[in-house]
């Protein structure tokens, strides 16, 4: 039988709030059959989405609202992150991890957030609805063979 639970966290746009929120979400997701590595990747993707909102949407300005909605079911986990900051037209721009491991000086020190989300989740999307930015991250639980 299909079960479906929904949880919502609302908090201020400050990076020091992220660990508490992401840890709580990870604890909620622990009710699934996912192992510690998969749970870590789920938390990591949420952290990357929240970093993106605070840094790029709210330009590191505190005092703004972020809402995270989590849907848990037998077949999927869905995170939705809502903010009212700047829209990011390049949010879903393809990113690559191609680099020469021997050329240490050329290895980039940033720009991995979207790549991580795209590799770890089954679906990543961004849309603007009535002035609200929505990042959606979906993980299917039927198969977990993706990285």
């Amino acid at each position, binding site marked *: 039988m299909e079960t479906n639970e929904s949880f919502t966290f609302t908090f201020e746009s400050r990076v020091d709030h992220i*660990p508490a929120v992401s840890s709580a979400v990870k604890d909620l997701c622990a009710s699934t059959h996912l192992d510690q*590595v998969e749970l870590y990747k789920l938390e*990591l993707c949420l952290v*990357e989405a929240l970093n993106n909102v605070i840094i790029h949407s709210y330009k590191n300005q505190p005092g703004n609202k972020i809402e995270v909605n989590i849907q848990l079911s037998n077949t999927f986990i869905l995170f939705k992150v809502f903010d009212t900051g700047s829209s990011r037209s390049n949010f879903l721009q393809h990113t690559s991890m191609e680099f020469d491991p021997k050329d240490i000086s050329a290895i980039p020190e940033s*720009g991995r957030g979207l790549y991580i989300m795209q590799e770890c989740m089954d679906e990543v999307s961004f849309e603007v609805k009535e002035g609200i930015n929505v990042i959606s991250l979906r993980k299917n639980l039927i198969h977990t063979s993706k990285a």
Partner: protein
Amino acid sequence: MEMETKKVEDLLVITPHAKRIDTLVAEEFITKFLSHCAPEARGVILNLSKVEFIDSRGIGALISIFKKVEGRGSLFFCNVRGPVTSLLHLTRMDKVFTIYDNEQEAIQQLISKEKAYK
């Protein structure tokens, strides 16, 4: 962020006492690591046994200190937890960093490397 340091022969072992290396503490991590890492220290081991969570900014911090130490010597990693190992693999940093299961193995390998260099 607290960091434990110990000297083994000419090597330096640094163990951050932090559960997370993320956007919140990445800059502090870089600053404290480099302040513990004397300029003459050619061989350094970063023991990540206490670290449970690293995000993309944390990876950037590891790359930053790696570039600085590798410019004059070697930085090895050890005691990396399974979930963090999965992130290093995902971002292909396991092709760049030299990682050992435990501190003793990292020390032995780094001593051998330094002797070969001399």
